[in-house]
């Protein structure tokens, strides 16, 4: 239990709670919503043998791309790593164990944990190789795949605004996996561009209520790193 007034922390202290070998959910779909500052702090502190759960592998040289290049990730549970050629190469060399899930099932496996369930029944992927790797059950005359919930020791999430109790608001497409991971991990570390006093966020505007957040740190607004992506609209 983290008491409400203990949640607002220096970034070094928050990340120092993560041990070697931890399983860590990392928010973000591409750059938006990726907690770059928390990842960089993790890189600096040296934790290794990590299992990361993230939609994608970012791109070479940014975000979890750095952790993968530094050899700190032993297992990546993801949906698509097509934008990170280094991660694909590490996978092909057998240095990075990669588990791929359809994106919506990955989201729901995390959400299932966040809701305190043990898994869910789906028809997604029936008739494909996805179905061959999971247990099935007959119910009401049809065959359903059982997708177990995906829990983690830690989640690193990114928000636009927060208060020091850990209430979070996401912006634009930076929401993605963040609110799901914030519910699914045992310890949730949130970074936000702005952390204000409780009462500064309208109750209806809060996307992740503070009950799910263990620690909250303030980070500098959008760095150039988030803009230096190859893609243009």
């Amino acid at each position, binding site marked *: 239990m983290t008491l409400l*007034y203990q949640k607002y922390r220096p970034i070094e202290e928050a990340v120092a709670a993560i041990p070697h070998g931890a399983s860590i959910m990392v928010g973000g779909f591409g750059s938006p919503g990726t907690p770059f500052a928390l990842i960089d702090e993790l890189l600096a502190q040296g934790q290794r043998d990590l299992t990361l759960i993230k939609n994608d592998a970012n791109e070479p040289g940014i975000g979890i791309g750095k952790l993968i290049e530094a050899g700190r990730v032993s297992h990546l549970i993801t949906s698509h790593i097509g934008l990170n050629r280094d991660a694909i190469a590490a996978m092909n060399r057998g240095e990075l164990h990669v588990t791929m899930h359809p994106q919506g099932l990955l989201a729901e496996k995390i959400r299932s944990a966040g*809701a*305190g369930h043990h898994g869910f029944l789906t028809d997604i992927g029936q008739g494909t190789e996805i179905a061959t790797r999971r247990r099935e059950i007959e119910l009401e005359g049809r065959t359903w795949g059982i997708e177990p919930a995906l829990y983690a020791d830690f989640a690193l999430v990114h928000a636009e605004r927060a208060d020091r109790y850990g209430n979070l608001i996401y912006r634009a497409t930076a929401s993605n996996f963040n609110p799901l991971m914030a*519910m699914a991990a045992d310890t949730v570390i949130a970074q936000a561009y702005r952390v204000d006093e*409780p009462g500064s*966020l309208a*109750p209806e505007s809060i996307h992740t*209520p503070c*009950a799910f957040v263990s620690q909250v740190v303030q980070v500098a607004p959008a760095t150039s790193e988030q803009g230096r992506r190859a893609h243009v609209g």
Partner: protein
Amino acid sequence: MSADQQRILTRAAREVIPGQIVNLGIGLPTRLFHYLPEDLEVLVHSENGVLGCRPRHADEAPDYEMIDSGGAYIATRPGASVFDSAISFAMIRRSRVDLTFMGAFEVDELGNLANWKIPGKFSPGIGGAMELAQKVKRLVILCSHNDKHGNAKILQRCRLPLTAERCVSRIITDKAVMDVTPQGLTVVDIAEGLSVAELREATDAKLIVDDAQLGRF
């Protein structure tokens, strides 16, 4: 409210630690709301979808769309959020509620709780009790020690349909404060003016009493 209920609530308020997230069950626990100082840094969760509620001030107009789970019009304090029922119960099932107070028909030595159904007599539903009882980090029961016919509510084994198994941490009644421990029910405090023998007489469970440790309330 009776003097017994007031004593239960006054004692119960001491259970709340600043910085916690607390849920107050329907009935007597709801009234604990008024025993928590407004400047206490605690967020009260109500399972209908609000975290950070407080009682309405006497001069505040009710907001008809802001209620607690018992249906009372409430207000919010700084740091409050509102959300849907799925988020609200995710919070409960993920044990993000630190402390819940609940009433009881029966509680037993193992920490089993029955408070939702009396077969053939009372079954208005389940509400959020099962999830709260099963998953909250610390469940404190607030109830009268005996029912209106004088029957014990603190039992060796519950007889009514259970709300949840082995879920209770502490029981606060008008007669005693008892902890559920691996050894059985341990009396922490006993009501002013009551003897241990009288307490045992009013209880259908074995009580562990260490006179040297016993408090009064």
